[in-house]
């Protein structure tokens, strides 16, 4: 969805337009749930967090500034609520519960070609293995499509720090990729 479309919706929401609110919700809800899920690891909790964030957005609609990134605002609010949830429920085994794999999208390649499937699986693992802050910045940039200023306000750090996190993350991933290619080649010569 274009940034311009979102700006128009925010303008209308600030004038109490429920239709524009619904459109923004439909557009951003799935991505924000994915984002919250990466912290809380439960679909229902992630959904609750995002829904509550949108209720709060509506309650503050008159203070919304269409020139400010509403995406940055929503991601920041969802992140804070997710971290609060983790803080308050740290004694529960949130991350350890057996997760029903049927609730996951299979991101399988329909094209059963080459070893690229395997590489994708590895790449997912490598991303998960990144240091926490690097992973956050990298995912916000790559999967949520936020620019560095937006990421900076979501993570409450400077844009420079965001840049450093992303550069470091890419270095990490590249190093592992190089190592992986070397291994493949060695196997190939046997």
């Amino acid at each position, binding site marked *: 969805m274009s940034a311009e479309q979102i700006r128009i919706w925010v303008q209308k929401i600030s004038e109490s337009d429920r239709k524009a609110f619904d459109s923004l919700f439909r557009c951003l809800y799935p991505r924000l749930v994915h984002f919250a899920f990466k912290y809380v690891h439960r679909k229902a909790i992630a959904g609750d967090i995002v829904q509550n964030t949108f209720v709060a957005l509506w309650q503050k609609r008159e203070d919304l500034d269409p020139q400010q990134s509403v995406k940055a605002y929503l991601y920041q609010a969802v992140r804070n609520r997710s971290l609060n949830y983790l803080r308050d429920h740290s004694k529960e085994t949130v991350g350890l519960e057996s997760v029903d794999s049927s609730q996951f999208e299979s991101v399988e390649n329909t094209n059963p070609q080459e070893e690229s499937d395997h590489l994708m699986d590895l790449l*997912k693992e490598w991303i998960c293995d990144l240091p926490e802050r690097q992973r956050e910045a990298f995912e916000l940039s790559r999967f949520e499509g936020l620019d560095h200023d937006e990421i900076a306000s979501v993570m409450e750090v400077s844009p420079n720090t965001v*840049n450093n996190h992303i550069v470091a993350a890419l270095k990490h991933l*590249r190093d592992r990729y190089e190592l992986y290619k070397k291994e493949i080649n060695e196997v190939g010569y046997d």
Partner: protein
Amino acid sequence: MTDKTRHNSKSETDIFEQFSDDERAGVREIWEKSANAEPPTPKITDLDIENALSTVHSYIDNTRLEDPYFHKKSKKNFLSWKWVAAAAVLLLIAGAGYLYIPKTITVPRGEITSVTLPDGSTVELNSDSKIEYNRLFDITNRHITLNGEAFFEVKRGEDHFIVSANNARVEVLGTKFNVRSWHNEPEQPTEVTVTEGAVHLYPAGLPDSSVIIHPGNLSSLSANMHKPTDPQPVSLGRITGWRNHRLIFNNQPLRVIFNELERRFNTTIQLEAKDVANETLTAFYNNPQNVGSVLKDICRIKGLQFSKTAHGYRVYK
């Protein structure tokens, strides 16, 4: 600190500029490939979105946020019109202790009753259960105290509906749920099961330790716990079977079972064989008409004897 005047946002291409020439191609390749390498996330269907949106609408229309952190926010509403109105009412009839006399509803043993509260919510009360609320219910609060077992259908309202049961607090906006919490069984945890909507359960005075219970799940809290158990899936038919006069014992200690029989059949059961009080039993009766036949089964299974007394029964070895 973010320096807003300094515009140093870097785009994708700037990122690649920061790598040495021989690194750049590899980094760019990783960036491209990673587009399809998002770690697993839950599937969100269109139906999920629409359901979520209607939940959001219902919260918005009630202008109140159901949120694990609402306790902090609700303080802002301290001087809302309701409090002002309540203060005025209090002044008008100052001294009338009437308001402080709680309204009590008690269900006799052997009966099951349904009552409608001033806010339109309904409560189905199991035998020998009691609820209490003050006269400002639905004016300044929706607080209710329970001793026993009850199934609540709470009307959505502006005030949070709070059930106090032993040391447990159950807090909701509008949903359906079952609470089981007897004062005379303090060693048994308070059990809360949700059939619709979502419910917060927390120990008295510790709202920050709340867990959220979703439909089909049960969480329990005993007197010595500072946090309720993680909600677990449970058979709703088993939990709410009492509403249809079923007797359902799932691995329950004999002392709990005998208490239940006493309430249901308005009788007394003297357990003289104390050593079996904690032995457990699983049993199911659809609509048992007399306690004698139930006792007969239990005693046969557990190798016990029973006989009639003036007020009820005695069970012995």
